[in-house]
C-alpha cells in the first residue's frame, strides 16, 4: 500500500516537471528555462533508488518527447543516461554537502545537454551550442531548492 503511494507521488512529481517544462510563459524565457525533468528524476534516483531507476526515467523521457514534439526517444535517451549516473553514484552523492552535489549535478546536466545537442544535430537543425549552456546554469542553481522541497515531500510520505 505504502509502496503504491510512493510510486504515485514520484509519478506525480515527474508529471509536474514535464508540465512545468512545457507551460507557456511570457516570451524571452525560452533560452533559460530550467531542466525540470532531469532535476526531479535525478533527485528520486538519489533518494529512492528502489522506486526510481533507469526505466522509469526512460518512460518519463518518452512522455517529455511527446509533449515537446522533439524527436521521439531523444530526451528518453539523455534522461536514462542521466538517471544511470545518479543511480550509479547515489550512495556517495547523497551524503555530499550541497555544494559538491551541485557540482556533480552540473557535470551530469552538461552530459545530458550534450546528448540532446548531439541528437538534435543528427536528426534536424541545431542552434549555437551556447543556447544549451544557459539552462545548465539555471538548473544547477535550482538544485538545492528542488532537493529540499522533494526531501520534505519524501520525509512526509516516507518514500524510501
Amino acid at each position: 500500500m505504502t509502496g503504491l503511494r510512493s510510486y504515485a507521488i514520484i509519478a506525480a512529481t515527474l508529471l509536474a516537471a514535464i508540465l512545468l517544462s512545457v507551460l507557456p510563459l511570457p516570451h524571452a524565457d525560452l533560452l533559460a528555462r530550467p531542466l525540470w525533468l532531469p532535476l526531479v528524476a535525478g533527485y528520486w534516483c538519489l533518494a529512492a533508488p528502489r522506486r526510481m531507476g533507469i526505466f522509469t526515467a526512460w518512460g518519463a523521457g518518452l512522455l517529455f518527447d511527446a509533449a515537446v514534439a522533439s524527436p521521439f526517444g531523444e530526451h528518453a535517451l539523455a534522461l536514462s543516461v542521466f538517471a544511470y549516473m545518479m543511480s550509479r553514484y547515489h550512495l556517495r552523492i547523497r551524503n555530499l554537502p550541497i555544494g559538491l552535489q551541485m557540482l556533480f549535478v552540473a557535470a551530469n546536466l552538461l552530459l545530458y545537454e550534450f546528448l540532446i545537442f548531439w541528437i538534435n544535430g543528427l536528426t534536424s537543425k541545431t542552434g549555437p551550442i551556447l543556447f544549451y549552456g544557459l539552462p545548465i546554469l539555471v538548473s544547477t542553481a535550482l538544485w538545492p531548492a528542488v532537493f529540499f522541497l522533494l526531501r520534505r515531500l519524501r520525509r512526509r510520505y516516507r518514500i524510501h
Partner: protein
Amino acid sequence: MRFGPSRNPSQSSLFHRQSFLALRLACAVTGSVALLVLSRGEPAGTPLSAFASRLGSVIERPIAFSVSTIASIGPTFTRHEILERRIGILEHRLLRLRARLARDHSLVFENERLKALLGRARTLKQAYRIVHVLRVDLDPYRQELLLGAGQTAALRPGDAVVDARGLVGQIVTTTAHTARVLLITDPGQMVPVEVAETGLLTFSVGTGSPSRLRLPFIANQPTGIRPGQLLISSGLGGHYPHGFPVAVVTRVESRPDRSFAYVTARPLAALSEDRELLVLTGSAGRPPSRTPAR
C-alpha cells in the same frame, strides 16, 4: 576506497541491483535509438510518430485548460469601469473599421468586375477560423507555434495562418485538439513572395530570428527593390494564398563579389505577441501534394 559486493554482505541486495545498472542503461539506450530511427522522417509520417503526437496532445490538454483558466482570471478581477471604458474603445474601433470595410467592399466589387473584363480568375473566398495560441517556440533552430485547435476544428496540415497584420506561417502537423504552425521565420521555411510595388517575384527564407527574413535570390543589378517596400505572398506553389502582406524590406545591399545582393526584411505579423490567430481553411492554402491526383 573501492567497495565490492563481497566485502559488504549486509548491503548485498542493493549492490546486486546496482550491478544490473549498466545492462538497464544499455537496454534504455538501445530502445531510444530504435525509437529515434523508427520515427524518423516527416512529422506524424510513421505510425510511431503519429502515436507520439497523439500522446503529446493528451499531455497538452491540461496545459490548454490552465492557459484558458489563467486568461479568464484577468477579466474577473478587473474593475467594472475599466472594462466599460475598454468596451467603449473597442466599439469605436469597430465602427471605424466597419466604415473602412464598407468603402473597401465597393473596391472589391470593382476589382472583380475589372478582373472579369480582363478574363482573369476570380479571387477565392477564404474560409477562416479564429484559434488561440497555446505556446510559442522561438528557438534559433525551431520557430513554431502551438494552436489550441486541431482536426476536430477542421484544421489540416498545409493551412496558412495569418494575424491582423500579415502572414504568420503554415500548419505542419495536427492532432485532435492542437496544431503546430511553422513560422515564416523558421530557418527551414521559404515563402514565395512578390514586391507589391513592382511585381518582382522572389522567395523569403527564415533566419531563426523572429524579426528578420532574408531574400537570398535578388540579383545585384538594379531590380527596383528598396527598403520600405511591402512584400506580399505571391501564391505561387499553392502553399500560401495570394496577396497577404508578409514583410517590409529593411535593407538592400549590393554585393559585387557575390551572385546575389544581401536583402533582409522584417515580418509584419507580431509573431511572438499574438494570442489569437486566423487559420485559413480554404483550399487555396493546401499544398498540392495533399490532394492526390486520382
